[in-house]
């Protein structure tokens, strides 16, 4: 299979957020600003690439009946490695993302891709899939974060676009997360159907 096509599929056709609707918790919980959304996306992407690669290498040695626990252990290992590295070198970011870093373990995207892709394809293809899906997830989170930050505070990545007084704080809070995501999924649907 064409490697570029695998990556593109991950971003558009199989976009984990807008199409597959997977990994909703970090999607809603960490997109209060564009920066946190993007960091969460990149963190997930890092774990996804590593776990896809490792699982694709392991697939011949692991009996079918215990494959799910093995995948979970592999994913949890990479998540913990990421968590420790962030605590050591990016403590401010780790505090900002809080509990959502260890919760990458239960992000359905990781286990889903392990089952649906990495267990059936070569190492290189699995890494490409990790990059594609990871980029799709990162893009979606950054976009949602940017929209919420702009509507809520008038800023994107901390740069003021319009005065803060015109922003409506509700978009940074929990209700705005659901509403913004709802409209963005609708937009994605209508653009995809009528290009």
């Amino acid at each position, binding site marked *: 299979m064409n490697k570029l096509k695998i990556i593109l599929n991950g971003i558009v056709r199989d976009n984990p957020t807008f199409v597959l609707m997977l990994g*909703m918790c970090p999607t809603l919980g960490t997109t209060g600003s564009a920066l946190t959304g993007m960091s969460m996306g990149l963190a997930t992407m890092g774990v996804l690439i590593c776990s896809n690669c490792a699982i694709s290498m392991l697939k011949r040695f692991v009996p079918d009946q215990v494959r799910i626990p093995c995948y979970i252990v592999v994913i949890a290992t990479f998540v913990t490695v990421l968590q420790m590295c962030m605590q050591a070198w990016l403590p401010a970011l780790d505090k900002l993302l809080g509990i959502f870093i260890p*919760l990458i373990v239960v992000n359905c995207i990781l286990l889903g891709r392990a089952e649906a892709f990495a267990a059936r394809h070569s190492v290189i293809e699995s890494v490409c899939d990790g990059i594609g899906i990871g980029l799709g997830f990162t893009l979606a989170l950054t976009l949602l974060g940017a929209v919420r930050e702009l509507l809520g505070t008038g800023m994107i990545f901390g740069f003021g676009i319009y005065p803060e007084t015109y922003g409506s704080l509700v978009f940074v809070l929990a209700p705005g*997360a*659901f509403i913004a995501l709802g409209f963005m999924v609708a937009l994605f649907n209508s653009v995809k159907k009528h290009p």
Partner: protein
Amino acid sequence: MTTYLSIIITAIFVNNIVLSQFLGICPFIGVSRRLSSAVGMGAAVAFVMTLSTAVTWLLQYYLLDPLEIGFMQTIVFILVIASLVQMLEMVIKKIAPVLYQALGVFLPLITTNCAVLGVAILVIRGDMDLGQSIVYALSTAVGFTLALALFAGIRQQLELTEGVPRAMRGVPVALVCAGLLALAFMGFSGISI
């Protein structure tokens, strides 16, 4: 006694796990088409969450901390939850087949429900003792069930509604409704106990 009461009210209403903490969104959207399945899922989650929180709490303080291997936390917790769900499935199947028929389909889904692992980690991060942890886990599950049931009721009505724009049908309009529900729950955040 007041601490327990405040934990209960806070976990159910003020910091509702789904609507203000954003944990357990996948089942919130996936299993909320019918009211009956929403309640079933809630009951299964309550069972697993309470049990797994108690077990992981004990493991953290009597195994991980004495051995100073706190970095194994995530792996140990997720394995405990996964095997607990498996065991529970077998036990319920043997002992209470009727209950198994009602809850069986939801059990495998719970392993990847981030609310379960989330609560197990949150009680450790919040320095709660065993009693508080169990009460917190149980009331969080009640809050989860409440949100799920309310949302399922709304979605059942939504399906009968005509005139929803084509692009908004299904999940998008449900998400907007969830947003309004979250807005309503924000009203609880003024309560101080």
